[in-house]
C-alpha cells in the first residue's frame, strides 16, 4: 500500500512506516541544516508530525520526500526567523569563516570537521549543498525544490564550494 494511503487509513502505523522509509534520509538532511544533532532530531520530529497531521494536503503526483523536505524547510526558516540566526538575504555576500582550519571543531581529515564547516555556512548555502551533494539533485532540480532561479543555486553552490575547498586544503596541510 502506498505510504500516504496507509497514513490516511491508520495514522499510527503510517507514522511508524514513515520513520522507517524516510527517517534516515530526512535526518541526514536535517543534520546539514541545523546547528547540532539534537536540533536536527527535533526538526525531523516536527516535520513527521506535521506530515501525518496534514497528509490530506499531499499531492500524490509529487515526490513524497520533496514534500517532506518542503515542510522541514519551512520549519527551519521559521526557527531561524525567531532566533534571527544565520539567515542572510539572498544575494548578500555569505559570511564565510576566514580559515576553516582554525574553526574550533575542525579536525583535519575528519568527516565531522567538514560537517561543522557546512554548518557554519548561511542557511541558503547549506540548502544548496544538501540538495546537490547529498541528494544528488541537478542545479535545475534543486532550483525547482527551493523555488529560486537556477542561477541563484549556481551562485550559492559556487560560494559553498569555495569555503569547502578552503577547508579541504587546510585539512591536507
Amino acid at each position, binding site marked *: 500500500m502506498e505510504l500516504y494511503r496507509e497514513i490516511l487509513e491508520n495514522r499510527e502505523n503510517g507514522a511508524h512506516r514513515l520513520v522507517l522509509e524516510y527517517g*534516515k534520509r530526512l535526518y541526514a538532511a536535517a543534520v546539514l541544516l541545523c546547528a547540532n544533532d539534537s536540533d536536527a532530531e527535533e526538526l525531523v520530529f516536527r516535520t513527521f508530525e506535521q506530515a501525518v497531521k496534514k497528509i490530506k494536503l499531499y499531492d500524490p503526483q509529487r515526490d513524497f520526500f520533496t514534500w517532506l523536505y518542503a515542510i522541514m524547510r519551512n520549519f527551519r526558516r521559521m526557527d531561524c526567523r525567531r532566533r534571527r540566526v544565520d539567515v542572510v538575504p539572498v544575494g548578500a555576500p555569505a559570511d564565510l569563516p576566514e580559515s576553516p582550519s582554525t574553526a574550533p571543531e575542525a579536525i583535519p581529515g575528519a568527516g565531522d570537521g*567538514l*560537517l561543522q564547516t557546512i554548518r557554519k555556512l548561511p542557511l541558503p548555502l547549506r540548502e544548496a549543498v544538501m540538495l*546537490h551533494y547529498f541528494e544528488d539533485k541537478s542545479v535545475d532540480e534543486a532550483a525547482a525544490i527551493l523555488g529560486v532561479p537556477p542561477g541563484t543555486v549556481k551562485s550559492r553552490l559556487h560560494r559553498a564550494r569555495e569555503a569547502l575547498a578552503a577547508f579541504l586544503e587546510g585539512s591536507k596541510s
Partner: protein
Amino acid sequence: MTDDELDGILSAKIKRSLAGKSLPDAFSARLAASVRRSAKTYRLKMAAAALAGTFSVCAILGLAAARPARNAPQGAVAAYPAQNSTPAEEISQLGILGVLRECFRRPGRPRRRKEAESIRFTTTRKEEK
C-alpha cells in the same frame, strides 16, 4: 582541480560523514504516541464544540421564547400556563433554560406582567358584575 572533481570529492565525503547518523531507537514510538495524543485531543475538541453548539441553540430558543399568545383567554395563561404556552415557551420552561430566562429578565419587572394585568382585569370585571 576542476569543479566537477571537487564536486565528486565533496559529495563522497559528505555522504560518508552522514552515513553514521541515525535517529534514536525510541523516535518512532515517540512519534506514534504524539499522533495518538493529537487524535484524542481532536476528538475531545469536537465533542466540546458539539456540546457548546447544542447548548447555544437551546439558550437562544429559551431566550427568544414568545410572550403568551394574544388570543389566549384572559386569566387562562396565568391559570394554566403549560396548556396555553407556545412551543418555544414550553422548551424554555425546562429547568436550566428557565434559570437563564430569569437571569436575563430585567430586574424589578414582575414575572408575567401581562398575566398579572389580565388577572387584575378579570377580577375587576367580576366585581363590576
